[in-house]
């Protein structure tokens, strides 16, 4: 037997630490495959409806709050960088630096969620929520327009103004139902992504605790690496969500 069997972090059913780390990584990757397929289903639904209703999707996307998405993208990519530095610190056995990088990563992720919550709140204030809220805002705006009043400013009112004088089926008419379909995808996809961020924050908080209790010795750096794989995947999914949801309508009216 090799000397590694005496390592306190080596589980008895592994031959050596290299094998143990490989198994941990593989286990996390197997889970990530199910995550990719889970989000893949949502992306597939998005693709089908985007191809069917490109103009409604472009309009609906252009009413989302782009600056928050841009800021959140920067926060998330930076948090992935600090996570890689956390693995490095764990590999080098630098406990203080490991905790610092983990805490920075946590704060960046928490800031992402904070801005996301603010965005949802603003969307709600603007009645940009699928279902009765949007439908009522749209119907009220239509009513105001037919009576010569100026409707209260909201995405639904802008849609009503756009559709004024047009009938369903006319060229340029944008269906409010299809705009709400985009909104359903927007809330479900960003909501599920947000839950993943929340779970990631929980895992990072656990790592901080473990590191603080000296339970992440240098030879057990893979504990940090496994969490980082999950964190990077959630970041990667955002790199696709951001353009598909926010940038689709960013150039609206430019062509």
């Amino acid at each position: 037997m090799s000397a590694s069997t005496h390592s306190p972090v080596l589980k008895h059913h592994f031959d050596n630490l290299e094998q143990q780390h490989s198994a941990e990584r593989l286990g996390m990757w197997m889970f990530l495959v199910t995550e990719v397929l889970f989000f893949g289903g949502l992306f597939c639904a998005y693709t089908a409806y985007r191809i069917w209703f490109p103009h409604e999707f472009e309009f609906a996307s252009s009413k989302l709050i782009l600056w928050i998405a841009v800021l959140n993208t920067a926060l998330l990519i930076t948090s992935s960088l600090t996570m890689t530095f956390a693995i490095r610190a764990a590999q080098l056995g630098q406990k203080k630096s490991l905790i610092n990088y983990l805490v920075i990563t946590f704060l960046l992720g928490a800031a992402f969620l904070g801005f996301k919550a603010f965005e949802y709140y603003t969307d709600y204030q603007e009645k940009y929520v699928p279902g009765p809220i949007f439908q009522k805002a749209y119907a009220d705006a239509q009513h105001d327009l037919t009576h010569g009043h100026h409707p209260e400013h909201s995405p639904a009112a802008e849609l009503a103004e756009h559709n004024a004088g047009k009938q369903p089926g006319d060229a340029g008419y944008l269906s409010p139902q299809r705009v709400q379909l985009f909104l359903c995808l927007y809330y479900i996809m960003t909501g599920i992504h947000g839950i993943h961020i929340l779970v990631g924050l929980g895992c990072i908080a656990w790592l901080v605790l473990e590191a603080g209790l000296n339970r992440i010795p240098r030879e057990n750096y893979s504990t940090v690496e496994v969490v980082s794989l999950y964190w990077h995947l959630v970041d990667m999914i955002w790199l696709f969500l951001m353009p598909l949801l926010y940038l689709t309508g960013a150039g609206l009216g430019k062509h």
Partner: protein
Amino acid sequence: MSDDSHGADHAPTMHDIDKPSSLVVVFLIVIGLSAANIGLSLTGLGKLALPVQLAIGVVQACLVANYWMHLRRKDTVVTLTALSSLFFMFIMFVLTLSDYLTRHYAAM
């Protein structure tokens, strides 16, 4: 893997430890691509928007997977596992879209 990665069971080998410079370079490229994506989209790419945005996303994802998620270590089982997700995604997209995108033929 290089030879120095074998035999050392206790501590991570130098091969496993990322160079800070390479981590920062990947970060700058990924965040730069996001900025380019946003800039290009704001200028109005028209019909090119979707392919350009997805191409940028794919390059970013490859960089993150290769460097930050350590697929560059070439652990065959891990690489195959990661690629299997793309394979099954491909099947899901092809089968689903072959239905959704051909429904209008039913009316012909």
